[in-house]
């Protein structure tokens, strides 16, 4: 057994991994530290510790910017969007993966092409469409856009999933007298749970942080989602020069997500990894 080679490579690699992890924790810690300084201290030096903890920064951030409303807006938009995506994609993926009809291949291809189209290509046309249908500046409009744009990728993943499910269970249920609908909702869907969890999580994470569309389609202050709200906050803080409050705002935004993530991390990662094998 070549233990020499193993240990050197492993040691270096492990060291890199640990440094990487420590650096991430360090950055998070530094953000909290920065949020408790005064503006003078912040620009005095990177390592300088605050003389007194400036909890007032949090008050400024919370009160001045509408972070609570933006958070709430994001929760609504993302939750409804993700539900919508799954409810619309699952049946479609089921049909595309397990049924035979002559236009199945072209349709599947049409959906897959969508994965490659960057949002930029449809940014302005969708804007005009939303204007025409009166859906501009509304959460409903943004949700519909999010659902439509997430379909290609979600259907792609779910199709892969449904394909791996055994046909015998399906047939057995049908023989037992279950209607085709029942077969799907009561038998096949539950079996595809790992895939559903995967796409739920992938979509939730990407929509939560989505910025470009939310910024373009919602102009009304109180309807901003969190990422747009943070950007506006960033802009205003630049002109106010109150950077420490900006960092307090960043902490307010990051840490609930982190805690949520830590609590669910096992399930989330399981879901993602369970899904990635086809």
């Amino acid at each position, binding site marked *: 057994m070549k233990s020499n080679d193993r240990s050197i490579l492993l040691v270096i690699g492990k060291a890199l991994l640990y440094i990487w992890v420590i650096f991430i924790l360090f950055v998070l810690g530094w953000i909290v530290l920065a949020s408790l300084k005064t*503006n*003078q201290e912040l*620009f005095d030096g990177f390592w300088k510790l605050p003389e007194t903890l400036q909890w007032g920064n949090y008050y400024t951030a919370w009160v*001045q*910017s*509408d972070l609570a409303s933006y958070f709430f807006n994001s929760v*609504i938009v993302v939750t*409804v969007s993700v*539900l*919508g995506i799954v*409810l619309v994609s699952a049946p479609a993926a089921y049909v595309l993966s397990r049924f035979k009809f002559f236009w199945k291949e072209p349709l599947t291809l049409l959906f897959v092409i969508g994965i490659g189209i960057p949002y930029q290509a449809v940014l302005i046309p969708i*804007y*005009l469409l939303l*204007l*025409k249908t*009166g*859906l*501009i*500046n*509304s*959460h*409903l*409009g943004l*949700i519909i856009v999010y659902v439509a744009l997430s379909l290609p990728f979600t259907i792609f993943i779910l199709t892969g999933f449904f394909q791996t499910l055994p046909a015998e269970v399906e047939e057995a249920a049908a023989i037992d007298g279950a209607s085709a609908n*029942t077969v799907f*909702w*009561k038998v096949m*869907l*539950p079996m595809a749970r790992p895939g559903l969890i995967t796409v739920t999580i992938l979509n939730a994470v990407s929509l939560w942080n989505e910025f470009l569309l939310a910024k373009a389609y919602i*102009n*009304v*202050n109180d309807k901003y989602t969190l990422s747009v709200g943070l950007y*506006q906050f960033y*802009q*205003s*803080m*630049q*002109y*106010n*020069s*109150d950077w420490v409050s900006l960092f307090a705002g960043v902490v307010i935004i990051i840490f609930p997500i982190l805690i949520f993530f830590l609590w669910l991390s096992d399930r989330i990662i399981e879901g993602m990894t369970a899904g990635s094998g086809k």
Partner: protein
Amino acid sequence: MSKKIKILGIFMLIGILLLAACSNEASSSGGKDEKVTINYWSMWNTGEPQQVVLQGIIDAYEKENKNVKIDVQWMGRQVMSDVRNAALGGDAPDLTEQSGAEVAGTLLKNNLAEPLDTLLSMKIPNEGTVFKEVFIDDVVSFYEQEGKTFFIPYEIISSGFHYNKNLFEENGVEPPKTWDEFLAVSETMKSKGIAPFAQDGNIDFYNAYYYYWLVERIMGPGALLEAAGDKTGETWLQPGYLEAAQKLQELVDKDYFAAGYEGSQYPAAQTSWAKGDAAMILNGSWLSSETKQYTSDDFAYSAFPFPEIDGSKGNYDQAELYLIGWVAPKGANVDAVQDFLAFAMQKGYQEGIVTDTGNISTRKDLEAPEALASFRETIVNASSYHPEYDGLQAEYPEWWKTVFLPLDDKLIFGQMKAEEFVQELKVQTEKYWSKQ
């Protein structure tokens, strides 16, 4: 499992219907005929001093005029592109604001603003003066088009070199008036270990201040605009433009810019200036309020205009007029807007612009904040006005951003010499126009 899904689905449907109902309700609130609504999209962000002042004016107005509601959205600096998008759908706000140059380059150029001439002869409430008389001379007519007024300015920005009076005194220097004096002051500072200029290199239009002012001083107002608009690019080869570039190169070669300036990300340089690590910074008059938080107690804000260059066309008398003001996009409720603006221009309210935001007011009876006193003096006594950047940003925005600024950055970072700079300007300007 399917039951859960069905329940989830029902909740979702309800959720969507509720949301649809809510958003519809919000947009169709024009049911009550009595109430007049003014949709005001402001360029300020929540928490900025201007936002606080304007919100105060809005509240006071609504109190006095109970049948008027002003629905204000604090959009931030990119408000004009949002206005543009809304105008596409026929949904532009009644009132918005930005710099005069940006308003001219977007709304005025496309005939998308309402004339506000009636406002000029209205009387200001509680004062009795005629509206147009309260302004510093010529300020309100600066952006007139075809004799009509569309733009009502309330804030004047100018640019020049900001410095700490105490720092200058400590080192025995006076604010320079001519280019040679300016070089001497810089050399003194450098020899004492203080970087002469701070510069946030990643803001390309801050970098442009140097070349723009040099051309203004050497060739007078309008020269930059003329050169940019010449489709052959030949104008750039005139000696004045080269001289300006050479003077800038001189500053670069003498290492007067603080170390690391090419990569300095805003607001790093201006905060280090505020902390005394650099002597001067060429910037807009907003700088004093922007850096207030970082200055120590013995920091005495002052500013001097860009030095004159002996024997050239430009001089101190030519003031830069960078105006911030209101405009009513096409389709606005002009009567309501004009009534509000007349109210807003009252002295008591405009004082807020001076005291709370630290800027120069357009009203001629309001003094400037102490830090900007010299700027105001230049403006009031000016023999002529030119817009910021000679109007380049408004007239030729794409050329400005894609041809001029990248080249100017190279010049100021020392990546390009003056001769190459004007040559490239000629070539690329020509190419730019050939593609239009």
